[in-house]
């Protein structure tokens, strides 16, 4: 394993505390955890793309950055209207 693969694997452990927050706290705090998970996903994808030497996978990170932002806004709008 190279440094980027190790970094990506270490970053995956960041999902554990975020999952705990999403499950055990209020709905709005779960949304906060989801937003943090989106950023974490982008960084994990960047590290895996560099670690596996597949340049096309950097595009997946770009798409993930946009889609996690859009989904966060959608959930925020939904929660603001219905909670």
């Amino acid at each position: 394993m190279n440094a980027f693969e190790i970094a990506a694997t270490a970053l995956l452990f960041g999902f554990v505390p975020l999952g705990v927050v999403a499950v055990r706290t209020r709905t709005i705090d779960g949304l906060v955890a989801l937003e943090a998970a989106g950023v974490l996903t982008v960084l994990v994808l960047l590290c895996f793309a560099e670690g596996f030497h597949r340049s096309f996978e950097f595009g997946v990170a770009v798409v993930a950055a946009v889609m996690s932002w859009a989904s966060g806004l959608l959930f925020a709008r939904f929660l603001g209207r219905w909670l």
Partner: protein
Amino acid sequence: MVVDVLLGLGVALELLCCLGVLVMRTTYDRLHYVAAGTTVPAFLILAAVLVREHLSSGGLDAIAAVGLAFLLNPVLVIATARVARRIDGLEAPKA
């Protein structure tokens, strides 16, 4: 060596932000850590990628991904904070 240092710092700070989301008590405190996750740690990891990739297509994609997260995330944080204020009953009713 430079890549290892940048990656180590970036991963450690990002994990610290994730722990901050878990440890903090209020939604607003948690949002501070979410916002921090797209600043220094993301740019440290981007710098590590750029040391290897330089300005190839992969490097430019990495700049785009981190740049988008850095520029768009404040909008999301503010929208979430406004929803949290509304849920907590702190927002003044609309005229």
